[in-house]
């Protein structure tokens, strides 16, 4: 970690890059944004924005459960609850006739209200307000190690399951006819999303995590005609907004997560306007 820090200090002779918390945040951005850019492409293709929103909300209940259990770090209970919720949603989705939107809406409502009820006992909800906005600058070296593990795991998984996921998203029956276990891959993706969203939520913020997942791929699809380009542009836009947002939030004194999302929104509108030049 020290080597990385001195390397960053050497390579980036700027004022902001001299502080340890900014160096940590920079490493975190470089680890988190590419995964968001990659997974986001599938979230947008499968119209799962609402779903990732529900996962984000479930973090509140996860924290609440952690508090009840007396855990010092609620991360474990958050991830566990989100994974459980992800599996529950995909189970109910496949065995009920209600629309996916309704199913997710029901679970999301339970998760968010249960979380608020638990956390607001005794009027202490303000203590958890940081989860709503997120605080990237508070990230510790230990958490960066955790992020690196998640980073590597997601990329390896993405190599193996991506093709199957695309086929399932195009048509589940078609995927089935080609030997893809549709339920398995759907659940696997849901679980990966649950882990990623809950782990990142304390840095990005519950209110805007979905935007970071959805905006860059939405921008990328405006100007790409195949999957490779789509992924590449989406990752580039997420990283670019992450880095720009981090630096700007330092100078402006604003919340990092929201600043990053604003930059990606700007990039989205730029791609939207330049769409005609890229088609044909």
């Amino acid at each position: 970690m020290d080597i990385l820090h001195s390397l960053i200090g050497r390579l980036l002779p700027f004022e902001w890059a001299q502080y340890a918390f900014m160096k940590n945040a920079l490493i975190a951005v470089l680890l988190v944004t590419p995964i968001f850019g990659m997974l986001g492409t599938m979230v947008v293709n499968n119209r799962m924005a609402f779903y990732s929103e529900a996962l984000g909300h479930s973090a509140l209940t996860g924290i609440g459960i952690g508090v009840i259990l007396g855990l010092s770090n609620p991360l474990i209970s958050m991830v566990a609850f989100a994974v459980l919720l992800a599996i529950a949603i995909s189970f109910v989705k496949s065995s009920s006739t209600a629309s996916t939107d309704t199913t997710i809406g029901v679970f999301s409502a339970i998760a968010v209200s249960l979380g608020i009820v638990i956390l607001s006992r005794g009027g202490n909800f303000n203590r958890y307000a940081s989860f709503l906005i997120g605080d990237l600058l508070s990230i510790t070296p230990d958490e960066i190690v955790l992020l690196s593990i998640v980073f590597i795991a997601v990329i390896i998984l993405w190599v193996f399951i991506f093709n199957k996921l695309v086929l399932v998203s195009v048509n589940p029956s078609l995927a089935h006819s080609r030997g893809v276990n549709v339920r398995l891959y759907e659940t696997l993706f849901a679980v990966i999303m649950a882990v990623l969203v809950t782990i990142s939520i304390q840095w990005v913020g519950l209110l805007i995590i979905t935007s970071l997942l959805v905006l860059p791929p939405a921008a990328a699809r405006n100007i790409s005609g195949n999957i490779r380009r789509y992924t590449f542009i989406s990752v580039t836009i997420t990283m670019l907004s992450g880095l720009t947002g981090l630096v700007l939030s330092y100078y402006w004194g604003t919340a990092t997560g929201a600043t990053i999302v604003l930059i990606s929104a700007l990039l989205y509108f730029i791609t939207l306007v330049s769409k005609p030049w890229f088609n044909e």
Partner: protein
Amino acid sequence: MIPRHSLTQRHEQSCGLCCTKINNLGVTLGKTEILRDVNIHIHCGELTVLIGPNGAGKSTLLKAVLGEIPHTGELSFVDARGSDAKRPLIGYVPQRLEFDSGSPISVLDLFTVSLTGKPAWLIKPGSLQRRVTENLTRVQAAHLINRRLGDLSGGELQRVLLALALDPVPDLLLLDEPVSGIDRQGMELFYNLVSEIRHQFDLSIILVSHDLALVSEYADRVIFLNKTVIYSGKPAGLLLDNSLAQTLGSAWLKGLYGSQLSGMENRGGLE
């Protein structure tokens, strides 16, 4: 059907040719019996059209054959050498795709994710490109290889999906006819291709159709399904089946033949 290999007498116990057999297939979901005692034998090189009213279980039958929902009874495939029955390799052309039409998935991408394990987001298809072009050429769609799926017309998409279903060449091809979005010309091109391919690859084909008038000239056999097989035989025979006309009303049957019959009616051929 005249067995084309009638000189080889090794497998009289089956159908003489390779064939796909669906025996006593039944599907019950929850407490509702959707299909019962469905028996269908399809010879290779034969196009069987499956029709029936809404809710007759047509799509359930397709899903059961695909193995997507549990069923009783059995499904087996016997090849021309009469070797042991196995579960057939199935090619499937869905009715429609459920993807977001703005998704940047090209035709080549669709083949890449279906045919290889190499992650399409990372690796350039390279050598696969030739194979895909060959596949697409079969259905007169080679020029579409780099187009986005969402930019294809209904007929073009249908041909691309057909090309995909033919690699690897299946034992049984299931086609779910699109309800809308394809013009008459596109449909005719599609069915001409299917008809050609049936002989070229000696395929068993089941086509779920909603418009018998359109497909009757290509069909070797029509199966009328309503929870079970009600009629199975030549397309023309369906109309002559009196018991069928009684249960369903002749108006409904005539509706099936649509345009063909309205021509006859005008000439006073019917009624």
